[in-house]
């Protein structure tokens, strides 16, 4: 099966640890990490931190997606908006968003608001770009056809441009998911009281490598699951589209 190489690696890892080739100080054995994860799960602690992490990431992500799609589509259909917004976006683009975290924390406090804002800003760009490109490349025939069936210009955006641009928008949103997680973890490293990033950072700081790695693996698994769920959901919602995955 596809997962076999992973099992092989895990097995090799455990074997190396047990045989003493891999000193515990360097890397805990797989079993130790697994036990630590088990402890975190059964105590419920990891769920608490997962919830607060994902609340932050989710909020920022949602804001970026809704705002980004709307902005991207309007930019594509109204030249004036494009001219006004595009240069500003190009200015923000080269700034690595995690570098804005300290600034936002000074400005908006060290609580959740600053983190949500940075995540939203970071996710905004890929969504806007994807929506913009998607909305721009809508086949004229579809627009003409819709107009010939009585669609007003306003409804055109909602009834034709948005659905037609959806495949490209979906790709941008997928990128945004990955970015949200990265910026989330970065912000929780820099300053947080709760969250998965906070856990990783504090366990690492006290040398509790097994717990730290447990959370890392947990985070990785969640990221993977989110991506898969997103793709599966996409396939169902857009069954009308011929996907090549």
């Amino acid at each position, binding site marked *: 099966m596809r997962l076999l190489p992973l099992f092989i690696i895990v097995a090799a890892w455990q074997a190396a640890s047990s045989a003493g080739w891999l000193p515990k100080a360097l890397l805990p054995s797989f079993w130790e990490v697994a036990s630590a994860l088990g402890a975190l799960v059964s105590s419920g602690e990891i769920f608490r931190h997962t919830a607060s992490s994902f609340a932050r990431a989710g909020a920022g992500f949602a804001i970026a997606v809704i705002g980004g799609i709307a902005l991207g589509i309007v930019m594509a259909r109204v030249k004036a908006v494009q001219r006004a917004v595009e240069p500003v976006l190009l200015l923000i683009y080269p700034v690595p968003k995690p570098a804005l975290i300290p600034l936002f924390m000074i400005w908006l406090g060290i609580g959740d608001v600053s983190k949500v804002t940075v995540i939203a800003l970071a996710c905004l760009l890929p969504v806007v770009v994807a929506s913009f490109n998607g909305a721009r490349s809508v*086949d004229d*025939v*579809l627009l*003409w*056809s*819709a*107009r*010939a*069936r*009585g*669609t007003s210009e306003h*409804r055109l955006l909602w*009834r*034709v441009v948005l*659905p*037609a641009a*959806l495949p490209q928008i979906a790709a941008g949103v997928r990128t945004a998911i990955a970015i949200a997680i990265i910026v989330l973890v970065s912000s929780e490293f820099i300053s947080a009281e709760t969250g998965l990033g906070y856990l990783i950072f504090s366990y690492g700081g006290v040398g509790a490598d097994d717990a730290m790695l447990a959370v890392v693996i947990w985070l990785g698994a969640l990221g993977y699951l989110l991506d898969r769920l997103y793709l599966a959901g996409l396939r169902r919602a*857009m*069954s*009308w*589209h*011929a996907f090549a995955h």
Partner: protein
Amino acid sequence: MPDAYLELRAVAMQYGSGAQAVAALQAIDLAIEEREFVTIVGPSGCGKSTLLYLVGGFLRPTAGTLGLRGRPITGPGPDRGIVFQRYSLFPWLTVRGNIGYGLDEKAVPRRERDRIVDEHVRLVHLEGFEERYPRELSGGMQQRVALAQTLACQPDILLMDEPFGALDAQTRRILQDEVRRIWQRDRRTVLFVTHDVEEAVALGTRIVVMSARPGRVKQIFTRGFDVAVGDEFEANPAFTDLKLRIWRSVKEEVDAVRA
């Protein structure tokens, strides 16, 4: 003199300006009566599709006027339904969704909408495919849906832009019969553009031949006989004769371009 159902007066279309201007159409005068099935043929690039798009309101003429039922044409609208050659169905809607699209725009109440959609599904013989998406349908079926989608809006005039051009010969024949059958039922006014002379004669009660670019109306033929559904019109000498005459007229234009 009262306006014809569809009236084009001195319609001209030019792309670009100044030295790079390309005249697509020059001084088109055309009068089409209600319930006519008019086909338009001509060499490639003669502007027959452009003419159709002008009637559809997707383009604005650089000169002249177009009027439908006495009112000037200023933009697209459901009174002029159009069937394109391809890729005009909304890929995210099912067959039912596509056919009902215009009805949704008019905010037709649900039950009425469903009734009309069902009626049109039956009309184009697509029972059983209502919940399919366009990508699951063959080219011929997609064009049936496009036709149903247009008819469901009850247009005053039906515009068809080489609708069967992308289909194989057999499917084309079948769909021509479908169009004929539907037209004979409704007697809707139709403006049908094609490069296929045989198709033009098979479907049209009047056939307009356009000149090479810049296009103008070269000749108008009237088909004096009927073509019934399922007819073997190849065996009809009147048909072959008319087809030959029209073909010669078109060929003159094709040769003129090549010369």
